């Protein structure tokens, strides 16, 4: 019995090679895309799972929401919070902080700037990373303890055993390597290569100690992790959070703050804070991707259903014969379902091969283009993971059942008399097929719109929205010393350099410093600080909205710290004007600000507003621009910005390095292109754009494939009609118009479905950005036009060949 069915199925497949290839090929492509998305989702949900005991580990951070401003989401807690929590909450077994720095690291002739972290001793006891050598649990107990990864051991020590050996940091401090851990995988939000103890001189954990026990201090800059005792949950801590903050931080924060406690495995999915981690992902993105994956399978499955049903007329005789020989309907259904399964299983096997081929490129697409972050390591090892193999099989069965059911029922429903005497009209199925094509095209149009909107928003975020001119700007970081005027002038003299300035932070970041000020008669407002050089605004091509730019001609322009007789000029952004309750930027000029600082800090004699600058988006398009106050203090402006002229960049870079060696700090130059910095910040949307763009491409291809296959059948079915029309005098062009119109109508209906859906979805997505482009309503008809062009392009070649045939050939077929 089975042999008979198989023989019919396989020979039918071979007889219609082109359509079979289209059918199976399309389905494999759809499966492959969906498998890749599924693997990615699994990967995202598997973060940190390689750490033993990760279920009991949580990360602590805070959100501060002062009235009248937007919430500040911090990635860490106050530096002194960890100790207080450990004392008051016995369910916390261990707690540790970790901070990141950029010292220079030297061994012999090797010296580099490295992203080095320092952590409290419990850090590796809370999270026992896979260890290759040494004792990880106790490595950070020693004040000079250092933990490094395998590849860094290789980098600095080659094949030697690094345990017990030393490295010099900032040409000042010696650390001993006390443990070596395996290189971190891609599915972790950590990205350290070296972790030193919290006693390192370069460590913030050490330098804040002098502020411990000072009243009124609140420094939310320490990512903090804790492990709960076995069986405990964070429920009590979460519920008691407000009370804890009331007890210890009321003076600084009032009721404006709350504790955020995230399970370790979900840290990478948390909303972006002040310093967004490039590898973080918005959970909404994951949902969206999952949805898109399903849609791609839907398109492929629709193709499959359409092509199988279109074949029904070919199999009419067989159905009639089998029925007249006594086959029950259920037996025919089983036969054709079985055939569908053969196709689907074949497609799944090919898909598995495609996925294996595509995986390296896929991982590259998902990785941050930055050596500071581990590349993505999505794996596909179904031979080792029975669950994965099972899932693939289950997927094939489900798709086979769903997609195969309709054609099977259609074919088995044929009445033997109709089937045997002149073929199967299949009028009902033509309707269903039309609607399936409409659905496919609707999905395609919606995907085109989504991709276009994401592209526009990303381009806006990376360019226009920044409002500063960031082309060819190189940031050079100083750790300890302020860059001297001599250094800056030397940079400026390099032929390939067109401008140099400096600031305390990267141009669209502000330092981690803020303080309270009030305007005359106003309430105290927290304003962020940013120390800049005289020409900072000019360098970034920012024009004042009111007032003037800083200038050496005004004595008050340079801010002198700790001088109670100094009259200072400050600049602020528009957001600060609003926050302080001033009527307008123009009204702000000449007004004085009174600082509400702790008594330990010396206040200047007066602070006057000299200029109001345009708002520039800080950190991310996602967070609202904070009110910022700028003051000119070149002594604190440690980050140098250098604008390069186009062309001969390598020579210019060499020259910059040479100047640094002469006049800069005694350590290798640490530099970063500003573009790179922004790409990191928006890595998640860039990734979304890449992935969605690829998926769109796959969908376009699949839809085109399906339409092509359908056009073959449509033409076959209408051969007699075409022959008659030609006999009646229709030209090739007339016939082509007829065939092409049949494929244009679905685009119209598809647009009616896709436009409102896509518009609503993309509007919602855009709401996630405070600064965003508009939807661009013109994108909707454009996407439809594109879909139409794709539809017509795919079917026109075949339609032309059919339309061209001689009428006798068409009629003789009968």
């Amino acid at each position, binding site marked *: 019995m089975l042999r*008979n069915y198989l023989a019919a199925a396989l020979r039918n497949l071979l*007889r219609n090679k082109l359509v079979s290839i289209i059918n199976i090929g399309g389905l494999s492509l759809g499966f492959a895309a969906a498998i890749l998305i599924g693997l990615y989702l699994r990967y995202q949900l598997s973060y940190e799972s390689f750490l033993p005991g990760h279920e009991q580990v949580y990360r602590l951070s805070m959100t501060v929401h002062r009235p009248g401003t937007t919430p500040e989401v911090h990635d860490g807690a106050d530096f002194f919070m960890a100790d207080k929590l450990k004392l008051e909450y016995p369910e916390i077994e261990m707690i540790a902080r970790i901070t990141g720095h950029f010292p220079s690291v030297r061994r012999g002739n090797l010296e580099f700037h490295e992203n080095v972290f320092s952590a409290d001793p419990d850090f590796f006891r809370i999270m026992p990373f896979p260890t290759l050598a040494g004792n990880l649990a106790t490595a950070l107990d020693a004040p000079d303890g250092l933990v490094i990864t395998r590849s860094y051991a290789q980098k600095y020590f080659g094949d030697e055993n690094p345990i017990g050996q030393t490295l010099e940091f900032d040409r000042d401090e010696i650390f001993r390597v006390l443990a070596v851990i395996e290189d971190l995988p891609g599915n972790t939000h950590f990205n350290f290569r070296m972790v030193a103890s919290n006693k390192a001189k370069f460590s913030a954990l050490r330098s804040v100690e002098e502020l411990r026990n000072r009243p009124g201090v609140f420094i939310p800059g320490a990512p903090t992790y804790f492990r709960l005792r076995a069986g405990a949950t964070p429920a009590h801590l979460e519920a008691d959070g407000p009370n804890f903050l009331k007890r210890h931080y009321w003076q600084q924060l009032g009721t404006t703050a709350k504790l955020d406690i995230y399970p370790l495995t979900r840290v990478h999915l948390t909303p972006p804070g002040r310093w967004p981690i490039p590898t973080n992902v918005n959970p909404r993105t994951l949902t969206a991707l999952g949805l898109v994956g399903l849609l791609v399978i839907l398109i492929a499955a629709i193709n499959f259903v359409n092509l199988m049903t279109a074949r029904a007329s070919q199999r009419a*005789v067989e159905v009639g*014969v089998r029925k*007249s*020989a*006594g*086959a029950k309907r259920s037996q025919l259904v089983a036969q054709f379902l079985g055939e569908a399964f053969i196709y689907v299983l074949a497609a799944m096997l090919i898909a598995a091969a495609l996925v294996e081929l595509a995986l390296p490129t896929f991982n590259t697409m998902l990785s941050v283009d930055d050596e500071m972050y581990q590349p993505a390591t999505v794996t596909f090892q179904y031979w080792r993971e029975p669950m994965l193999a099972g899932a693939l099989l289950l997927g094939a069965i489900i798709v086979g059942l769903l997609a195969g059911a309709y054609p099977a029922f259609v074919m088995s429903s044929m009445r033997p*008399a109709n089937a*045997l005497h002149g073929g199967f009209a299949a009028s009902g199925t033509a309707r269903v097929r039309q609607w399936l094509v409409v659905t496919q095209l609707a999905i395609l149009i919606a995907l085109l719109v989504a991709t276009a909107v994401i592209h526009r928003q990303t381009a806006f975020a990376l360019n226009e929205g920044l409002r500063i001119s960031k082309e060819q700007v190189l940031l050079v970081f100083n750790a300890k010393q302020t860059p001297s005027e001599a250094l800056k002038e030397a940079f400026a003299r390099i032929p390939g350099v067109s401008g140099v300035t400096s600031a305390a932070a990267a141009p669209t970041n502000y330092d981690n410093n803020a303080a309270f000020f009030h305007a005359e008669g106003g309430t105290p407002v927290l304003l962020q600080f940013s120390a800049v050089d005289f020409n900072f605004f000019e360098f970034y091509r920012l024009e004042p909205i009111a007032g003037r730019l800083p200038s050496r001609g005004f004595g008050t322009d340079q801010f002198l710290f700790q001088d109670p007789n100094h009259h200072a000029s400050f600049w602020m952004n528009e957001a600060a004007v609003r926050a302080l309750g001033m009527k307008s930027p123009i009204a702000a000029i000449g007004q004085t600000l009174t600082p509400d600082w702790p008594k330990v800090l010396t206040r200047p004699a007066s602070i006057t507003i000299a200029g109001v600058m345009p708002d520039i988006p800080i950190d991310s398009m996602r967070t609202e621009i904070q009110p910022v106050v700028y003051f000119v203090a070149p002594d604190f402006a440690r980050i140098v910005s250098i604008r390069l002229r186009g062309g001969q960049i390598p020579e210019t870079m060499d020259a910059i390095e040479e100047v640094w060696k002469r006049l800069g700090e005694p350590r290798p130059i640490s530099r970063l292109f500003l573009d790179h910095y922004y790409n990191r910040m928006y890595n998640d949307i860039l990734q979304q754009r890449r992935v969605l763009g690829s998926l769109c491409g796959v969908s376009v291809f699949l839809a085109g494939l399906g339409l092509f296959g359908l056009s073959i059948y449509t033409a076959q079915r209408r051969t007699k009609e075409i022959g008659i029309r030609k006999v009646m005098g229709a030209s090739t062009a007339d016939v082509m118009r007829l065939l092409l119109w049949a494929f244009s109508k679905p685009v119209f209906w598809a647009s009616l479905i896709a436009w409102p859906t896509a518009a609503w979805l993309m509007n919602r997505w855009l709401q996630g950005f405070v600064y965003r482009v508009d939807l661009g309503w013109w994108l909707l008809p454009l996407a439809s036009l594109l879909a139409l062009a794709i539809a017509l392009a795919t079917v026109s070649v075949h339609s032309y060949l059919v339309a061209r045939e001689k009428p006798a050939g068409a009629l003789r077929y009968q």
Partner: protein
Amino acid sequence: MLKLEQIGKVYRTTEVETQALSAVSLEINAGEFVAVMGPSGCGKSTLLNILGLLDTPSSGTYQFFGENVSSYSEAQLTAVRRAAIGFVFQSFNLIDDLSVEENVEVALLYRGVSAKDRRARVSEALERVGISHRARHLPQQLSGGQQQRVAVARALVSNPKVILADEPTGNLDTANGNAVMELLISVAKAGTTVVMVTHSLTYAALASRTIKLLDGKIVSETLLAA
């Protein structure tokens, strides 16, 4: 025995109603070889479809070897067809994707016959119609006459009580047509009831009785001169 009483068949679309058969009454005894003739559109194929349980009448009753099958469901008709009826068609209706022996085997697949028995009976049927040497060929590789012989083998292999042949020689030349008719005659002589629709007076004369249809009604019956 096949007994039709006042059988009527109407085909309805949304706009048109066609009376294919009108008050047809007919009795065919077991073992008879009956020819049905008439111009195009007279209802011959409809009559055959009803006789062969491929279609149900709009009115009247049909007794198939004592069973009243006129109001049987599709499932019930299938069961009866499976047990008792074989078909031969003008356009052969072989399955292009199956070989000669696989095509003949289809007639046994749904009758619960074991694989071993199926192979034996198929072999025998092919031998009987003289086409065993082409058992592994596909239909596209055979001539018209050879394809029809395969169709006859398929009709015979299940040892049906009735064979219904709808213009079995319509697409064949004289020599091949004669060969097929010889097969049908030998089948009838062996005791199977054969009902054949034909345009050919020559071939109709080989049957024991000829029924003439016109506009859905029986207009005459002629018995073969003994």
